[in-house]
């Protein structure tokens, strides 16, 4: 062994490491020996910590960390920041360029200000879903003068004033997302357009801005990507501005802007022949003919999404003739026919992503055509295409061997034989088979024996799936991370035991499985140490014995749904008190838990919880202190 290791210089190891993209592979690498561990420490630039208390010592050992992700830490608040920075002159702060604080809703402006003030070289900050953030927090962020990238998604209290702070303080901004910042108006966007001339990407989705904002945006010379989903106040005038301005525009998303007429799209195409992506889902009930006519100008178009708009066969023929380089097309709910698909693929042979959700008229012949033409297909969405039979999967399995993602939810024609054909697509990463009632354990065993890369599997309400299927799954699909088994009534404790060998499993949905008991959960918790999200809603036979094990083993659990289980006061307090990473708990319909139990459970976890769902009657029964404390900590309470 030693001799081999001496041959591997640090340079070589660095090269090897840079090719390891998967987290688990890197973990295996650094677990090999101290030399590898050391190289990994030197190589690592990104750090996603689960507990902030380890950060200072970790950062001193990892000299190249420039990106820090605190989004999964349960308890980032101002005090945590002060503690983090209290160690004498932390030098790591100078290295940090990227900071992810998504969902750190406990943080307030003082903490944020301290953090931003110390990390002087910050270039990218993500504070999305920090729902309590307002103008003060925005002002704290504006102190990062080098900032290039900022996401404020769902920071619902940030108003024009906060945006103005950022626009003035961070003139180098290149990417900005303001999705769901409902308080931002035209005035704020106007100022942004005047102050941040370097913006390349702007997301103003769901803002209550009018065409006036687009007038200002149209003057932004460098803007390449504009996302404005669901801007219901924007009318044709706004799109005319965009058509005349934004000389660098490459990607435009106007999905769900329902005030637009066909002329709006026309003027955009007229002004931007080099558009690469056009997203116009759910804008039109029928695809405007003017667009189809003008599509000849969009020679470079790579992505086109027109979900929700009825498209005739003739239209698809013209589009496929004009846009030869299309790699992705979204035709969900467009009532496409077999002829339409044949027209489409006659021109666009490079299609990689094809969304045909709810095109229920499609038959196997359409799939035959797709499979024979589009060998590079990576993603195919066929949800609710009821007429498709196993023959479709046969065509796909024989031709589209690169397929990574397929959605067959609610395709009632899919059976075990179909899965056998599909299993030839060995690159599959995501497979959705929800509501496919004809599949059984046998079908699953075909998939498990061939598709080793599957990470996401949806078996929602697949009544034919039982423990045997899970057994084969646990043998084959070792990389499984997300598994939905809700309402697969045949699954029992034995199935749980099988699942416990899936070490990477992090997201498990087990709703409505009456045959799982405490013993099953105990085995699962003991095996799947990476579990981060667990849904046990309506598993009415899981009692405290299972939850005790959960409290003991599943220290990485972030989200849990206990609703309708048999958990008692003690079990609830155990889980809530011991799972120090728990952030989101749904605690509805717990017949064995008293008000006192809820109070205790919440007290045990109130410093960490970011989201909790409770029955409405508890609003009056719980102590006001606990409710106030939760709210002050930035926890969102949903009363059911």
């Amino acid at each position, binding site marked *: 062994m030693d001799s081999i290791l001496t041959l591997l210089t640090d340079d070589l190891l660095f090269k090897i490491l840079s090719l390891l993209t998967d987290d688990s592979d890197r973990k295996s690498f650094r677990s090999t020996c101290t030399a590898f561990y050391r190289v990994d420490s030197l190589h690592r630039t990104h750090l*996603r910590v689960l507990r902030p208390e380890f950060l200072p010592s970790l950062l001193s050992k990892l000299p190249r960390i420039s990106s820090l992700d605190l989004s999964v830490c349960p308890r980032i608040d*101002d005090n945590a920041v002060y503690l983090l920075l209290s160690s004498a002159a932390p030098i790591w702060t100078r290295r940090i360029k990227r900071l992810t604080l998504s969902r750190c809703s406990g943080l307030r402006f003082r903490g944020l200000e301290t953090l931003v003030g110390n990390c002087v070289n910050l270039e990218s900050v993500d504070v999305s879903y920090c729902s309590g953030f307002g*103008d003060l927090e925005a002002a704290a962020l504006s102190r990062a003068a080098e900032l290039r990238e900022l996401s404020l998604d769902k920071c619902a209290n940030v108003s024009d004033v906060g945006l103005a702070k950022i626009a003035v303080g961070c003139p180098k901004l290149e990417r900005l997302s303001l999705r769901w910042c409902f308080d931002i108006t035209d005035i704020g966007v106007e100022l942004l357009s005047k102050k941040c001339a370097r913006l390349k990407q702007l997301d103003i989705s769901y803002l209550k801005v009018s065409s006036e904002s687009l007038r200002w945006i149209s003057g932004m010379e460098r803007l390449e990507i504009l996302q404005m989903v669901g801007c219901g106040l924007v009318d044709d005038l706004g799109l005319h501005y965009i058509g005349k301005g934004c000389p660098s525009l490459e990607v435009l998303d106007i999905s769900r802007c329902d005030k637009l007429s066909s002329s709006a799209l026309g003027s955009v195409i007229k002004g931007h022949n080099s558009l690469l992506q056009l997203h116009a889902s759910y804008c039109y009930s029928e695809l405007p003919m003017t667009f189809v006519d003008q599509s000849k100008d969009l020679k470079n178009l790579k992505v086109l999404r027109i979900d929700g708009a009825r498209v005739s066969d003739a239209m698809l023929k013209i589009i496929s003739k004009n846009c030869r380089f299309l790699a992705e097309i979204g035709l969900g709910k467009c009532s496409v026919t077999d002829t339409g698909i044949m027209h489409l693929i006659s021109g666009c042979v490079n299609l990689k992503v094809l969304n045909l959700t709810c095109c229920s008229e499609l038959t196997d012949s359409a799939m035959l055509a797709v499979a024979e033409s589009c060998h590079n297909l990576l993603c195919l969405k066929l949800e609710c295409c009821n007429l498709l039979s196993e023959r479709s999967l046969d065509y796909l399995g024989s031709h589209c061997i690169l397929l990574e993602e397929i959605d067959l939810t609610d395709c009632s024609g899919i059976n075990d034989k179909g899965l056998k054909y599909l299993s030839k697509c060995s690159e599959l990463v995501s497979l959705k088979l929800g509501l496919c009632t004809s599949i059984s354990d046998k079908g699953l065993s075909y998939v498990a024996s061939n598709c080793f890369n599957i990470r996401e599997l949806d078996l929602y309400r697949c009544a034919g799936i039982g423990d045997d299927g899970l057994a084969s799954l646990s043998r084959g699909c070792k990389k499984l991370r997300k598994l939905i088994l809700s309402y697969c009534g045949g699954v029992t404790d034995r199935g749980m035991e099988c699942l416990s060998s899936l070490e990477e499993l992090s997201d498990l949905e087990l709703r409505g499985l009456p045959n799982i008991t405490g013993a099953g959960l105990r085995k699962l918790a*003991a095996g799947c140490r990476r579990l981060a999200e667990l849904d046990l809603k309506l598993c009415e036979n899981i009692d405290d014995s299972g939850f005790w094990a959960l*409290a003991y083993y599943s220290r990485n659990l972030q989200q849990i749904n206990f609703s309708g289980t048999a958990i008692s006061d003690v079990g609830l307090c155990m889980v809530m008190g011991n799972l120090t990473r728990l952030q989101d708990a749904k605690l509805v319909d717990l017949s064995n838990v008293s008000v*006192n139990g809820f109070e205790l459970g919440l*007290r045990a976890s109130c410093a960490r919880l970011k989201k909790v769902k409770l029955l409405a009657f508890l609003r009056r029964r719980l102590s006001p202190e606990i409710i*106030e*404390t939760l709210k002050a900590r930035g926890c969102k309470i949903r009363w059911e």
Partner: protein
Amino acid sequence: MSDPQESNNTQDWDPRAMLNNLSFLEKKIHQLQDLVHVIVRRRAQSTGQADEILVQQQQLMTADLTSIIVQLISTAGSLLPSVKQTLCPESSISQQFGVTNQTAGVSDNVVFQHNNSVNKLEDPSDMTGFFGAEQNCPIEDHEMKSDDDADEGENLPPGFKRDANLRMHMRGHGDEYKTPAALAKPHKESSSEPILIKRYSCPYIGCKRNKDHKKFQPLKTILCVKNHYKRTHCDKTYTCSRCNTKKFSVIADLKTHEKHCGRDKWLCSCGTTFSRKDKLFGHIALFQGHTPAIPVEESKGSAGPSNKVEQLEFKYKSDAPSGSSCRNVMDLERSGEDPISYFSPLNFETSGIDGFQEFPRPPFEDSESSFSFLLSGSCDYPPKNGRYTGSNDME
């Protein structure tokens, strides 16, 4: 001197002011009468007097008459605000009576600056005589709007003392006005035509606006003289009823202030306040580095709850029941795992819940376990309640 007759609204019309004005006019007419009497007597005594004196007297009379007319119109105008608006600006009145661009040299209180002094003695000036007659009372009572309106009248382009000020002003008009050509001094197109710029002096000796001052800065109109005098040399008698701090000597200034007082909630970091958000944002767009200031109440609001939390936490920590069997375990865990104090169920009333047990946990080491999802297997599973006798097998 500060009769509240400057009211802009009809409902504010003050009959006392009206009476004052009328008696003033009466006095004025009497003075004029006396003057004419003198002339008549002189003519009777000796014809062939020096023409010069006669011309001067005529000038004086015309000026007085003009001022009487102006006064009369503005007094009437105080009853009708709409009428007043159109009649009040001085230039329009002057034009009505054809006395613009006419001058009679320098009188006591009024300085005339000539671009071209050709017609120096040609015609009597409009206001000279009036001011000459009223030396002791230079600030007269006729209606006017605030200084700004009169100073930079609607149809006159504002002048700027400094280039920078002009540039700053032009920024507001947009980029196309920032070119050097646009900023250059306007051409004097009609140099052949005599353009007279009238300038007025403040009667207050030593004032910069007084003609005797070394760096005399003249005033443009009599309205300016009046408001300047009130603002700088009179007591500020009007207090804002809203804030009770701001004081004014010109009632129009008070009115303007009251319109905004307390409502200027849009504050810039430079201290300027605005009544409307878009005005503030326009200001911020113009000036480098200015940002909107965030109201103080909001920062208080954020600080409040967090303090509360700490208090609550503290309270429960100290209230921990000392009889708890797991207390030691708890303390150990807290000190080891968690630098931040937090709640434990044991720190709360636990009566009614039996068999409560926390797992003992080893103090966390600084290991990679924090990001590799590994939990140290060394901790012992509590066998106390017998449910997990075989638990070690599960590791």
